[in-house]
């Protein structure tokens, strides 16, 4: 008796499992590996760095939203609902499942596409970086739209050698969405994993920034400065 029941149960479980699963037999998973570097060395928060103008600074926040992922190749594949929040605290991110095949690279946007950017944040799934429940959720509540890129830290504005003045660059707005294009061959096996690796060189981001004049912006109050930091952020992706 028990054996029969056990067998029936087993069949039931197998059937249900199969029924639940999406039809993705021919897909694998694509991951993004991010190397956080500063001039070729590992990046660290709270470490004094010097930019090309000789000014000292350190980061304590560096969050970047990425969206609009497309795998390049003879049959390109676009990921519809992938939003990532990248921070130096983590290096491996799951993009999503992808049809098996050979690809030649990856393009993605720094920032959030205009549709999602003006959506109600509370309607995204609770585990999405766009939902207020996410620890790195960043949104301008007083002007609907996400803060695409948030750099915060301290800098030396008075030549004392001590990074004692807070700086912040909160960059957003549809017009500051920027595309990054990575050429990198990868193949996806059915049920397998593939990884695209990018490097962010944080040294590039605050080069040419004169902290005495360009200490902070929340984009709307200083679009030229926001555009400058955003363009340097794009250049930091390799």
């Amino acid at each position, binding site marked *: 008796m028990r054996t029969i029941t056990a067998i029936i149960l087993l069949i*039931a479980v197998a059937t249900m499992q199969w*029924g639940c699963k999406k039809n993705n037999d021919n897909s694998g998973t694509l991951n993004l590996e991010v190397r956080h570097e500063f001039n070729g060395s590992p990046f660290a928060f709270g470490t004094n760095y010097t930019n090309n103008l000789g000014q000292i600074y350190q980061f304590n926040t560096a969050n970047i939203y990425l969206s609009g992922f497309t795998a390049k190749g003879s049959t390109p594949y676009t990921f519809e609902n992938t939003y990532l929040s990248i921070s130096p605290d983590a290096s491996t991110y799951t993009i999503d499942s992808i049809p098996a095949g050979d690809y030649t690279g990856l393009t993605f946007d720094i920032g959030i596409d205009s549709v999602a950017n003006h959506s109600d944040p509370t309607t995204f799934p609770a585990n999405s970086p766009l939902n207020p429940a996410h620890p790195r959720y960043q*949104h301008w509540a*007083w002007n*609907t739209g996400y803060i695409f890129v948030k750099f915060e830290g301290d800098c030396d504005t008075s030549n004392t050698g001590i990074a004692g003045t807070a700086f912040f660059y909160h960059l957003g707005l549809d017009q500051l969405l920027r595309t990054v294009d990575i050429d990198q061959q990868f193949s996806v096996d059915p049920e397998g994993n593939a990884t695209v690796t990018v490097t962010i060189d944080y040294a590039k981001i605050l080069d040419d920034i004169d902290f005495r004049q360009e200490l902070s912006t929340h984009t*709307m109050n200083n679009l030229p400065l926001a555009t400058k930091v955003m363009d340097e952020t794009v250049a930091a992706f390799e």
Partner: protein
Amino acid sequence: MRLLQPLSKGLALAIIWLFAGCQSEKSVQETTLTATPYHWNLPDHFPEPEVPADNAMTQERVDLGRRLFYEPLLSLDSTISCANCHQLPFAFSDPDKVSAGVHGRRGFRNSPTLTNIAYNKHFFFDGGIPSLELQVLAPLDNEDEMQLNIHQAALRLREDSTYLYLFQKAYGRQPDSYSIIRALAAFERTMISANSPYDRWVQGDSSALSPAAQRGLQLFMSEKLQCSQCHSGFNFTNNGFAHNGLHSDYSDDPGRRRVTMKESDIGKFKVPTLRNVEVSAPYMHDGSLPTLASVIDHYASGGQPHPNKSPLITGFSLTDNEKADLIAFLHSLTDRSFLSHPKYLPQQAR
């Protein structure tokens, strides 16, 4: 046979459990969702407010939103609720020039009335926010106001079984950012003021307005004063933005430029409703005008010079009697039944 029964029961349960596992958790939780229709009870000269499809009005949602409106747990140090700055006797505004938030900190704008907020198209003096639901995210995040991430607020509410039950009934889910902002918006949409002496006069009660208020209404509508060009319609606002010549220097608060980045929007602010304006002093975005008399003096003077000033603000002269008439009219927009209605008061303690 005896052995088979419990076994097959177990099997049935296992199968049900498996099916349940396939579905979203939501349908299981939705069993207690209750939707008692909400009745607007509006007079003919008031349209029914537009309500977003995903937040239909129900009595459960309104009741929950009212509880949240008076809930200090929504602020970092559990001392400030929405009602601290939006107080019913002042038509949900604040007699302080600039309201105090957590740790007694002050922001940079006067708390506006929430009278008839259901009819607004944009929110905040600069109009940066497109819906009443999304507006709720602003005071919670603002470090001068409640300073608590809405997700942290939701986690606090989940520790309270009464809230778990009320959220389940109203939205079929536990407290989260989605349900918190919708419940508060549902309650705010009920803040409709349509029973002032002016409204009774519109509905045919010719004794509702004093002769002075009727003369004031004529002045308000006149080409000489132009008030009704901006403060127009049943809610005394065109829902637009205008520069009314308040200052010549807006470096402290650029107004609508803050969200549009256009130089031509410096000094433009939301045109507010004038309903219950008698009790919502002080006036203007920065609370810089203390009385209705000072507001009228401002408009009569033609305001300060500024390239963006509306061409409608040119100045005029009024006799003392005419000024008193205009104030009598503005007072006739006060709805006493609104300012003390029990449906807006905090619920009895649990």
